[in-house]
């Protein structure tokens, strides 16, 4: 059944490999131009009045990005080009997992042959393996490609951000699986998934709920700032993600088809 699930998601995974491949090439190719641009910008921004400097934010980040190839890669690849697409990527891989089988009535084929637990966990395993493979390959590919392009970049921080991105993906994965199990068609999981991904940073604009925005964690901001993994947030991602996966398995076990 694992093979069948892989067959089901192979084209979507392939599309993500191609898209991420292009993005990675672009990120590395633009390094010299971005460096020059940031250098010029930081000099101009330094001459701004203080109140405008406050709006622009920390100028040392721009200086660091200009001077530090590794910081540039981490912030522009895992912290931007790849990182910001992860929730969308997880949503597109996960939303049809159960909802399409139910909508297209192919679930009967599986239900007649396997226990519900077997169906559920094999689907979870196959789809999360695909998410992990994408993350892992493109986390390694980025510093490796930078080194091949003649820059001197280490792997240590990439792996720390990878760990955070795997856990954040697990959290989003749990929520999207939950939607896929709950709804009987394919449209609602997509709409609710997008709404959820947008609602979290919106909710965090209200200061007491600022912790609800998972994007700084997902993009590795704390790793870039402190050089360490955010332990508390990591635990939160594991707990919420796992709770959603278990809740969805209970619903799937009891659902009528």
């Amino acid at each position, binding site marked *: 059944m694992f093979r069948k699930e892989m067959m089901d998601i192979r084209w979507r995974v392939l599309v993500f490999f191609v898209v991420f491949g292009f993005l990675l090439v672009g990120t590395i190719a633009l390094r010299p131009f971005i460096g020059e641009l940031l250098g010029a910008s930081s000099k101009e921004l330094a001459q701004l009045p203080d109140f405008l400097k406050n709006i622009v934010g920390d100028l040392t980040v721009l200086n660091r990005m200009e001077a530090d190839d590794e910081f540039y890669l981490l912030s522009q690849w895992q912290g931007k080009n790849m990182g910001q697409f992860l929730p969308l990527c997880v949503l597109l891989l996960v939303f049809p997992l159960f909802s399409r089988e139910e909508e297209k009535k192919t679930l009967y*084929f599986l239900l007649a042959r396997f226990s519900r637990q077997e169906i559920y966990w094999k689907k979870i395993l196959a789809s999360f393996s695909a998410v992990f493979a994408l993350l892992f390959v493109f986390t390694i590919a980025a510093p490796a490609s930078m080194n091949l392009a003649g820059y001197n970049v280490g792997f240590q921080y990439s792996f720390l951000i990878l760990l955070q991105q795997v856990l954040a993906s697990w959290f989003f994965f749990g929520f999207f699986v939950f939607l896929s199990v709950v709804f009987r068609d394919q449209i609602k999981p997509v709409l609710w998934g997008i709404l959820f991904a947008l609602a979290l940073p919106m909710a965090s604009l209200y200061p007491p709920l600022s912790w609800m925005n998972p994007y700084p964690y997902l993009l590795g901001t704390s790793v870039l700032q402190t050089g360490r993994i955010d332990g508390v947030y990591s635990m939160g991602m594991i707990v919420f993600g796992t709770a959603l996966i278990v809740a969805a398995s209970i619903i799937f076990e*009891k659902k009528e088809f």
Partner: protein
Amino acid sequence: MGINLEEGLQFDHVKKTYRNGVQAVNGITLNIPKGCVHAFLGPNGAGKTTSLKAALGFISYEGTVRWDGKPIEENRKQVVFVPEEKRFYEHWTLSETLKICTKMDTRLNSEKMQAYFHFFELPTKKKIHSFSLGMKTALYLSLAFSTEAEYIVLDEPTSGLDPIKRDDVLEIIRQRVIEGKTVLYTSHIIPEVEKIADTFSILRHGLVVYNGNLDGLKEKFRVFTFSKEAWQKQKAPKDVIVTVNQNQVSVLTDSDDAISLWNKEKDCFCEVPTLESFFQLTIRGERHV
């Protein structure tokens, strides 16, 4: 001789009420012995598919269903199912179906499956979304017939098939029964059921209104046809099913008293019911008790 509850399929007071309040199955108790074809007959909404779904564990229900004395969860490997809606993984070709399904379901015999694909003349290179309904039915049947499962559950298994292939499928079903398999079957096509079913149940409003075999039915029941005027002169007898048409009244009964009384009556016509007439009268008629 008592019924062996460790063999065959037993429905024991099975009830199913959906959340919207619709009572689809209203207390079915049935014993289907091994090695036969048992058909569920009934109009739309009678509870045929719901009964099958309950038996297969697709829905929750009250009561119990046992396959050889075990719940479906413990006996799933001995059951294959062809659903009412024959939709399959539409982006697969038949060769992919063969590869993936034989890996997924170790009960499937690859050579048999190929032979059935060939028998049903299914194109191996085309994607399944281009298949007609009959071809999708043939695909599902090929999957069901390519295992050695003890129970073959078929929900409308000839939908979309041409008459030649339909006869061939009935022949294959009979062959599987000769090999000792048990077939549970639903259909709207009564001549088809008459052709292959050893026993059948007629369902109406979620209840089994008749359960038995065709010979027993022909032996026990008679249909008397009266003109409306002649029927009005009759005393209302007990335990008969009465159907009033435009000019005549048909009465189905297994009451010895009624049969001997009306056999002497000149104003009526007596016949042995066919499955078709029995089904029509049972579903359309009104029971007088």
